[in-house]
């Protein structure tokens, strides 16, 4: 059944390729061992400069991006970048499995044989030793260990005070204004069918979903994969098929190596975005999540508590048990 589903998603992605218009294709410059980054964005122009800066520093060699109907000029900015290949579409994000169909096609076309990082523009990937070892070191080590996929927890970051007061400016590191997080309120269960862990919790679950925890957003992701053209992500990057790729955790008590995606969603652009996305209803569950944020005072929440932790570095996350070095030393 899962094989059928995988075929179906692939076929669908192949069909949806027609929705993509090539804007700038620099993929000929991709070398065999290059690390690729796949990303869909919409009206994120303000975030793009730092996004590129961060991932270039981590050692991403080429960005493969889809612009979904931006009106803020972010697409033009991205197209100018020498290491970006850009496609564009005005089709529905929701109908394209929240952008996954487009990326699945591009991954099939360009990702085969590469380590591929799939993230959103507001997600910053950290992993053990990321301050001293580039992504290629992680990729090489995973290759040598016969590991094909790498798991990460989405860690929601927020400012100390109302979100609207965390004023973000283009080019700025969002962690300068929003660097607090919840360290120990994550709830995990196992999805037997897809074999992935289902992680919920963090600031979003306690602040927005305390009454309806089953609807709290999933925080488990498999963002870094040695791509093969047979693979496909299922629901955002929470799950990937074949399902063996979701086994990024140890079941006998040991710790596998894992990372975190620092999620800098809660900055001053958040309130407007929540309202816009709630009306658009293009996100998962018809934008239920955004509906929840946009309601009343919650469009400008203050997520900070006296138990919030301030982000320092990956070693702090390791001590807190939010990522693990595993066997990588």
């Amino acid at each position, binding site marked *: 059944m899962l094989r059928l589903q995988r075929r179906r998603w692939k076929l669908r992605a192949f069909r949806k390729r027609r929705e993509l218009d090539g804007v700038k294709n620099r993929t000929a410059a991709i070398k065999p061992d290059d690390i690729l980054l796949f990303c869909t964005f919409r009206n994120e122009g303000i975030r793009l400069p730092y996004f590129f800066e961060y991932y270039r520093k981590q050692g991403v060699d080429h960005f493969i991006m889809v612009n979904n109907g931006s009106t803020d000029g972010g697409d033009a900015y991205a197209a100018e970048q020498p290491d970006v290949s850009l496609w564009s579409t005005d089709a529905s994000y929701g109908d394209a499995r929240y952008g996954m169909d487009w990326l699945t096609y591009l991954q099939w076309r360009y990702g085969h044989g590469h380590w591929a990082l799939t993230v959103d523009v507001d997600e910053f990937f950290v992993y053990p030793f990321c301050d*001293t070892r580039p992504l290629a070191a992680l990729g090489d080590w995973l290759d040598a260990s016969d590991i094909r996929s790498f798991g990460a927890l989405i860690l929601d970051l927020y400012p100390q005070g109302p979100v609207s007061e965390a004023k973000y400016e283009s080019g700025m590191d969002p962690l300068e204004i929003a660097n607090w997080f919840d*360290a120990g309120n994550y709830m*995990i269960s196992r999805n037997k069918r897809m074999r992935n862990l289902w992680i919920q919790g963090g600031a979003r679950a306690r602040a927005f979903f305390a009454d309806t925890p089953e609807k709290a957003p999933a925080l488990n992701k498999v963002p870094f994969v040695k791509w093969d053209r047979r693979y496909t992500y299922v629901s955002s990057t929470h799950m990937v098929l074949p399902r063996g790729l979701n086994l990024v*955790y140890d079941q006998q*008590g*040991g710790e596998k190596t894992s990372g975190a995606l620092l999620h800098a969603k809660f900055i001053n652009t958040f309130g407007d975005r929540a309202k816009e996305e709630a009306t658009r209803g293009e996100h998962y569950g018809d934008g239920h999540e955004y509906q929840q944020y946009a309601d009343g005072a919650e469009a400008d929440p203050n997520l900070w508590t006296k138990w919030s932790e301030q982000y320092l570095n990956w070693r702090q996350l390791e001590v807190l*048990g939010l990522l693990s070095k595993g066997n990588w*030393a």
Partner: protein
Amino acid sequence: MNVGVVILAHTALQRAEQAIRLWVGGGCPVVVHVDKKVDQKEYNAFVDALSDLDQVQFSKRHLCEWGTWGLVAATQEAAALLMDSHPELRHIYLASGACLPLRPVSELCDYLDARRETDFIESSTTEDVPWTVGGLDQERFTLRFPFSWRRHRRIFDFYVKIQQFARFKRRIPTGVVPHMGSQWWCLTRRTLSAILNDPKRPTYDRYFRKVWIPDESYFQTIARLHSTKIESRSLTLSKFDFQGKPHVFYNDHKALLRRSACFVARKIWPRADELYKIFPLPYNKPDEQVGPNPSSADRVFANAVDRRILGRPGLYMQSRYPTIDDEIGVTAAPYSVLQGFTEVIDDFEAWLSKTTGGGVVHGHLFAPDRAHFCDNSAIYTGGMSDHPTLRDYNPKMFLSNLIWNNRGKHQAFQFGPRDTQTINWMMAKDSNARISIVSGAWIISLFLAREEFSDLRKEAARLQKIEHAQLKILRSPFTKARVRVITLAEFVRSPMETLESIVDEISEQPHPRLAEAPTMVKLDGLGAFLQDLRNQGMHPFLTGEFPKNTDNVTSVQTQQKPYLVR
């Protein structure tokens, strides 16, 4: 010069070239073997790049697949070539293209010069070496391994199974005692030529050709037959992980490598530019030679293996989710579950916290209205919410988070039959749980409520049923928690012994006799109330036997021992 080097190069040939230049620069002649997997064009370029060095020779190329004979054959030929062309050599050092000399070659030469007769080769018998891949230790010498473990794992495993089933056993050549050890050795010319010129070498070679991972056993075994002085350790710092795969060194290992004072390290990540820039570094002082000391590096890598295999107990995360938590426990540290005490003792939580010198004593964490954290706050450590729906969505994670977030601070909380009961099994199977129960204590709040008797009766029956079910779980053979159950009647008669053991448990040290006794709730008339319930047909059997007239029951101090379930 007294030392020659054999280099086995596989990938990252530019780095291999860099290492070779270091060796030659230090005056050592080098014979290079390049894996046959490297394509001819790349090989030619490599040979050209080194053509300016007349101390470098290339030996005949073999296909070197991990764990196969090719590596040994390559080493044999390269070593023979090296010794033939340089009769002055006293020691031969085996290194790879991913090896980096950490100290000047001259320091290695001095070190070996002072130990002219010593063979440095890690070599121990299979009984003593636990690091084996695939669970094969002795069997790697008694079975045949014609298939590649890397490329044809299934056929490999299947063929091993068949041989095990058929009780197949190869005969080990006479005189040979299998030894294993690090592939990277440094042998004296005398020992090495004795190995290569051994009249029985064809027999040995034929045998080892089908042994699994012969590069870790051929020289290690045969050297035992010829050497006069073996020092069983490698001069190359090379660490292996739990899968038998070498750890790689990166820029951030600079300090660790430096501290190790080893002569050579393997494997260096080809793009660790900084390491290639700063090493080799001199260690010797004018009047003192410094020997290798890899113990701190050993510790770092041993920790990595522990983390990968055992992990941190009580941690649930994206890369650790034990599905065998019945066996290994669900929490990080001991904690106390207290049931019924708040009913019998006035302001029990405050008293306990004070008596234990500021112990963390929560209220009913699993109460229906909310989680009553010790400071009565809505958000507690780690961002845990007091919201009951959120807590009951995954009570197991709620508890394991609480204990994980407060490692180092003993947690105690109240529990009772009015609380969420779904975590009973989890606590029962958790060897960190210390559960103390005054059974039937829930009756007191009903007794004090003075409500409609028929409602009380119904509620009493409900609570008794819940507590009874809980006690049944705690008495099951699967229970690993430390459980202490005492009936209300017994507790009222002699409370101090139970309280003392709880205080000891929380303060985690033996405590002097309790200075201040807690104030007990007045229970005058409870005996009569219980009798009334009995008369109505509801038998409160969990409370124990109260005399009908309980007016001065608290003054009766008989030495009743609480019974331990486990």
